[in-house]
């Protein structure tokens, strides 16, 4: 007797499909990025002292593997990538992947706290605006969200430094402050000094997703309020608070979770700007430094790591989506 749980099976098929797809995309991306980064720009001019002897030059080129053809270099790169090695940084003379992983916690800390700010402030504000769209407070909230949409992240960062760090000296403007080690990674949200350092960059990064969450919550509530199940809940005599906090929010959470998940990737990208302004030692700052120094292995490794994170996030969002909304059968996709 063989019982197959079809729901689990379809989930499994979906997952394997998605993982294979992600893998193919990762492969294509690596080829594109590798070819593009390696085809243009000559790191030899940057890395080798122009006064070095011819012999030394040849030795360095050989050490870095730059004498081989592009395809040979890519082949070696792929072989190493499967072993988890993404090349050596020309500048730091260390494995690129360890350079990036070392800075990943700082970036994740920044993006996650920005997302949390956006959710904690955005959902209540969006709900207030959605329930009474015509009063003054709601209109101000919506106007504010358009305003936040339009704010250029980098300029807001400068203004925050100007107000809070230079004029009033409330918050420090650079670095991470005191950190606490957890499982070998350093985090700054557990110390008071670290929190003070985290405040400005995370507020800076949070403005855009905050505007997005407000708009989404607003639109979701506007669309859901006239639906039958809300009328039914009201007819049952449930309290207004329970209708809003349980029935309504549970329903509108589905699109919000999806968009927040996708925003996570966008925030990792935009962290490049915030990190450079606030001298936050994350991987965004590393990539800008690597771009100016033409440190190709680090650029390639950074991209592969971020693409990998994006794929992972998209996968998690898809799974969450199906868990939150029982109407969506994954196999139907």
């Amino acid at each position: 007797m063989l019982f197959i749980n079809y729901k689990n099976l379809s989930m499994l098929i979906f997952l394997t499909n998605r993982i294979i797809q992600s893998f193919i995309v990762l492969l294509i991306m690596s080829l594109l990025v590798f070819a593009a980064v390696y085809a243009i720009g000559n790191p030899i001019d940057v890395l080798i002292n122009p006064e070095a002897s011819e012999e030394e030059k040849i030795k360095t080129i050989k050490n870095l593997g730059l004498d081989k053809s592009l395809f040979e270099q890519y082949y070696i790169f792929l072989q190493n990538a499967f072993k988890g090695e993404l090349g050596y940084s020309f500048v730091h003379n260390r494995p690129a992947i360890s350079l990036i992983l070392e800075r990943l916690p700082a970036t994740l800390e920044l993006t996650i706290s920005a997302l949390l700010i956006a959710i904690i402030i955005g959902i209540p504000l969006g709900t207030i605006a959605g329930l009474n769209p015509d009063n003054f407070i709601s209109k101000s909230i919506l106007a504010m969200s358009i305003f936040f949409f339009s704010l250029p992240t980098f300029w807001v960062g400068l203004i925050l430094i100007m107000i809070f760090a230079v004029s009033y000296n409330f918050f420090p403007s650079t670095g991470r402050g005191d950190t606490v080690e957890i499982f070998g990674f350093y985090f700054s949200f557990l110390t008071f000094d670290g929190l003070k350092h985290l405040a400005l960059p995370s507020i800076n990064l949070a403005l855009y997703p905050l505007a997005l969450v407000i708009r989404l919550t607003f639109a979701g509530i506007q669309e859901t309020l006239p639906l039958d199940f809300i009328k039914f809940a009201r007819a049952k005599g449930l309290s207004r608070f329970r209708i809003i906090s349980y029935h309504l929010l549970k329903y509108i959470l589905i699109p919000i979770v999806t968009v927040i998940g996708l925003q996570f990737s966008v925030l990792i990208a935009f962290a490049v700007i915030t990190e450079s302004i606030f001298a936050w030692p994350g991987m965004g700052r590393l990539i800008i430094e690597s771009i100016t120094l033409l440190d190709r292995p680090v650029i390639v490794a950074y991209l592969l790591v971020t693409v990998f994170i994006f794929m992972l996030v998209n996968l998690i969002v898809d799974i969450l989506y199906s868990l939150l909304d029982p109407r969506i059968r994954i196999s139907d996709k």
Partner: protein
Amino acid sequence: MKKNEFNIVDFVKIYSEDKLALFFLINLIFILILVIFGPLFTLQNPYDLSQLNILDSLLPPLSQSYENNYFFLGTDDQGRDLLSAIIYGLRISLYVGILSVVISLIIGIILGVVSAYFGGIVDSFIMRVADMVLAMPSFLIALVLLSILGRGLENVVFALVMSQWATFARVIRSSALSEKEKDYFYSAKCLCLPQYRIVFGHLLPNCLPPIIVLSTINLAFAITLEASLSFLGVGLPITEPSIGLIISNGYEYIIVGKYWMSLYPGLFLLITVISINIFSDRLRILLNPRLNI
């Protein structure tokens, strides 16, 4: 029936019902005039070194110059009038933004219509590529391309186009697909009209509303993106000083309290982007056939 014909007077009337949107539309027109005719009434050509005086450098807003001119927004470290520099910078920013949106729009229309019209393998190939591009944040695509290509106006436009075309292609494809099912499209086909007439005379005009809204949103986005990239030092070269570069130039002076060099260019950028965003938001509401106005 003249009901469906576009009437500019009626449109302005309906548009003006939202006073805030009207205010920002006037603002936008004002900015456009300022940018187009700017060089006629700026104090100086900020990039003509012979017109600059080093004695005027780092003056705060509303101070008088060596030659008794007023610098309303102060000067930068080379004695350049900030207001003139901002107007010249906005010209470059808007030029890059509009150019990149127009090119992405053309690419998007071609790919979107081809996808919707022919379907099949062509459609799924184009859409898979578009999906791949859309899976990456556009800022990252532009950053990577520029890190490879180096700074330069053409490179920035190319990077912006590469990060935007997929959105256009997707939206145009989906609206073309829904228009393809409508009766007017079938009747045009039954009349045996040539394909270019079906596409350009019937299909595209009916896809216009979402295209217009998307273009305005993306224009605001492209301008912000270019400013961010230039600020980071990977965008436009110093010979094309856009708003982002001017802000970046003032960055180092913020710590010593000389705030105006970054504050005012940023405000101008912000007002431009807000005006475009509110304009497009109003258009989105007005052009949405599901909402009755």
